[in-house]
């Protein structure tokens, strides 16, 4: 006669609070591990050995490699901003103000954010997949077995390269955005070059440039550390690499957008009190 194992009749012991507590613990652990990795990537800068050639390689991959998409996106963001704002300003006969708006929006906000998100999509995923593949194929263990600190060799050069490259990419995106804006305003609003460029440059003050070029430094740090962290914690073979890649882009993008709010608040405060 078939009988039922008593253990299957026991009530499910997994409680909601237990699951929440477990999830919270995992989240805290992730934050702790991410913080330690980020701190080590910075402290490594103050002691040898330095991997200068790795930094240059990464600057080429991140900076030069991302340039085409950043320029293209910047150009069309500037162009579409003029299209969107021109209709409103035409109602008041103030079409020249489009230059002010495009310039301020690009330099303060859109340039850093869009460039950050693009580089996150391109490079955070690349870092996660590259480092994740190295974990899966035991290359990181091999590195440690041969006496190399993987954080020093793999993470620090990527952090340094991204932090150095992102402000430059942002400046290029801002410039191409202004060119895009100018071309559209010249063809659709018949705005002359002198008016556009004079207004676009004059509207900017020092604090705008500070804001526009400080944010990419923070965003660059976020992109590299999140990408490397997700790559180095890969588990579960190639499937794990795929998950880490997606997670890197999502996490880096969300953290960039959230930190952008607080950075803007801080920058506006500093603009009013310091600069």
């Amino acid at each position: 006669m078939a009988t039922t194992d008593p253990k299957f009749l026991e009530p499910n012991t997994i409680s909601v609070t237990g699951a929440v507590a477990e999830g919270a613990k995992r989240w805290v652990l992730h934050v702790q591990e991410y913080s330690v990795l980020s701190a080590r990537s910075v402290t490594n800068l103050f002691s040898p050995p330095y991997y200068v050639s790795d930094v240059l390689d990464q600057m080429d991959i991140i900076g030069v490699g991302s340039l085409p998409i950043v320029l293209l996106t910047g150009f069309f963001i500037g162009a579409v901003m003029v299209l969107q704002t021109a209709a409103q300003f035409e109602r008041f006969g103030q079409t020249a103000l489009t230059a002010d708006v495009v310039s301020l929006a690009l330099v303060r906000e859109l340039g850093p954010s869009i460039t950050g998100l693009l580089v996150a999509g391109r490079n955070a995923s690349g870092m996660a997949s590259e480092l994740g593949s190295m974990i899966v194929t035991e290359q990181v263990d091999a590195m440690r077995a041969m006496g190399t600190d993987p954080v020093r060799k793999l993470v620090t050069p990527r952090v340094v390269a991204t932090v150095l490259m992102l402000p430059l990419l942002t400046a290029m995106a801002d410039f191409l955005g202004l060119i895009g804006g100018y071309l559209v305003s010249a063809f659709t609003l018949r705005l002359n070059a002198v008016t556009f460029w004079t207004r676009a440059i004059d509207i900017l003050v020092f604090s705008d440039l500070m804001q526009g070029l400080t944010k990419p430094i923070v965003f660059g740090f976020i992109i590299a550390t999140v990408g490397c962290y997700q790559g180095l914690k890969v588990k579960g073979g190639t499937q794990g690499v795929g998950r880490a890649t997606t997670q890197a882009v999502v996490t880096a993008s969300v953290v960039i957008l959230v930190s952008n709010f607080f950075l803007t608040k801080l920058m506006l405060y500093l603009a009013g009190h310091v600069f």
Partner: protein
Amino acid sequence: MAGISIYNHRDECSAGSTTARTHDFRMSATPDSEPVLSLEDIRIGFDKGNVLDGLSFSVAPRETKILIGESGSGKTLILKLAAGLIQPDSGSVQMLDHDLGRMSEKELLAFRRNIGFVFQEGALFDSLTVAENVAYCLREEHVDEEEIEPRVRESLRFVEMEDTLEKLPAELSGGMRRRVSIARALVTRPRVVLYDSPTAGLDPVTSQTIITLILRLRDTQGVTSVLATHRLQDAFGLASYEFDGRSGRVVPVAHNGASRPSGAATTFVVLREGKVYFEGSPRELADTRDEYLRRFLL
């Protein structure tokens, strides 16, 4: 056998390179009576319980210790513990007179340069060429560039892969990758080499080539080895044959490996449920009547 010459002078490792960093670890020579590697009461567990549960064994100088066990029995874990790549939950790991549990990660990084580690799939850096892979450790130690090239060539000649210097790992077969991995492990002239299933997934002929290389390294350099495998034929091959330096051939061992004249004994450790289930000579394993052990012999 021209390639072997440099490995007869392992003590010159740091002295040979004027700019090489000399670590204290290199200077501490383990007396012949002291074990090179000693694991005592090791326990380490993951989500599903303890993988190693009170494991203890030691490896004497020039000994070849062969770890046998089913998949998931903790063979790779033992090698990683021996290299200090992971730390046990409890117990102690002594390697070359150093308690690895008491060393910081920074000290361990320097210490590991005394140990060669051959990973299961080779673990070659796929963005570097064969020559760059083998030279990696030397460049990390800031050895002179003029010295690096001959040492890399010599190491690759030892594994008969000198013609692949500029190839990328992706262009090599599985067996060739393992051979390059062995070359990379021995380029620093380590005192101990840890092999993680070096013949796994290879055809019998390539496996034999790898085993012959390990055998040559053991018998010409007197390197202490720990080899994890689940292929008993490879293990008995290592125990039953030796490399004759004069004829340059692999010949059967008269004593079946238990007490080689050179002192390079080969012993087996069979793992079961996180513990040492059997430890003894190849002859003792071959003659066993134990049901569990006989499963490996079939």
